[in-house]
């Protein structure tokens, strides 16, 4: 099974995998070989794929996932490998967003954007924390 992971800015992955788990808008789901052809929208969360018995983690938000003839294509709005994420900075970003949210009127137009940004910041932190940890042991 092949996994292709791209964002509007770059291609992150084109590799053979054994399985992949992704955050759909209706919940986390997994794709194993021989999966039925499938098209779904993605939410914000952690994408995990296993290649040569090792798990890898990617923070994704928004986009779609297509399974077509054993090729999984993920078109994500944003995607970052866990090891690329600077957890300390992600944490700072989250704090800043929390302050901004506290100052914003609940009915303001940018409220939804800020909340979405906060969810993304929290997700980046969580996924970033996966880096370095033994991937197989985490299973």
């Amino acid at each position, binding site marked *: 099974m092949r996994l292709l992971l*791209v964002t509007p800015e770059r291609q992150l992955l084109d590799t053979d995998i054994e399985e992949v788990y992704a955050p759909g808008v*209706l919940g986390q789901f997994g794709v194993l070989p021989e999966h039925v*052809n499938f098209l*779904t929208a993605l939410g914000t969360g952690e994408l995990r794929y296993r290649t040569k018995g090792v798990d890898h983690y990617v923070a994704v938000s928004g986009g779609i996932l*297509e399974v077509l003839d054993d090729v999984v294509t993920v078109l994500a709005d944003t995607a970052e490998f866990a090891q690329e994420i600077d957890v300390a900075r992600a944490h700072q970003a989250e704090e800043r967003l929390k302050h901004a949210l506290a100052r914003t009127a609940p009915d303001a137009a940018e409220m939804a954007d800020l909340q979405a940004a906060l969810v993304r910041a929290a997700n980046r932190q969580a996924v970033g924390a996966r880096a370095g940890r033994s991937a197989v042991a985490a299973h």
Partner: protein
Amino acid sequence: MASLKDIRKRIGTVRSTQQITKAMKMVAAAKLRRAQAAAIAARPYAQKLDTIVTHLVRRLPDDVHPLLRVPESNQRVLLIHVTSDRGLRGGYNSNLNRALETFVQERSGLDISFEGIGRKGLDHLRRRGRPTIAQHAMPSVFEASNVARELARETVRRFVDDEFDAIFLLYSSFRSALSQVPTVEQLLPFERHAGGDDHEQTALDYVFEPSPQEIIGYLLPRLVEVRILHALLEAGASEQAAAMTAMDSATRNASQMIERLTLQMNRARQAAITKELMEIIGGAEALKG
């Protein structure tokens, strides 16, 4: 004939101009490398998105999403004109402006409005007395995706609100460092790719989550955004390539000019020496006499 001092001064001027053009060429080359990498990195996403949407749209009715509406006429056209903010880009901007005039001529009788990105194109539109509905600066590589998002939002709104029947993009596509081609692309309404039923069967086998309607509602505006981003990145790379080529030939012309002036200077110096010698010899001869 110019005096020795004048020629020396001119050589100095040309040499300092050459230093500037050489520096500009190197800056453009560095920027080109970045712009080209960004344009190439953005291609897989755009291609894949295009394929998925094409599969999907072919089997959905037109009224499933407002972006798929088929306009009743083609009278009201919007052209988004992408040029650079700065000059010294060789023929880059004038080629695009000429392509715009051709576009207008080919569609005489239609009501064409303009939206400009980049000062050079906006200046051209103003000179020709063509009013623009919006003006923007040409974004850098780093700003491109944010600017594309904003532009896409406005463009989608204009089409959905029935302000225009068709929206086109005019930008320079990047073939190579030596070739940039002005390109007109129809942004909306989406062109249905005719024929090619080979994927029809597999497309029918899709399981959708949530409904196809909701997925297409996400995908279509996204496709507009990605196409605009693609145009901006291609334009950015083209612009730097044109700047690099223009500054390279300016540097070469300066070298030639310095060579020519140096030759002139040596001749003038030789003439001055000969004249002085003649005077000395003449004086000596006179004393002998």
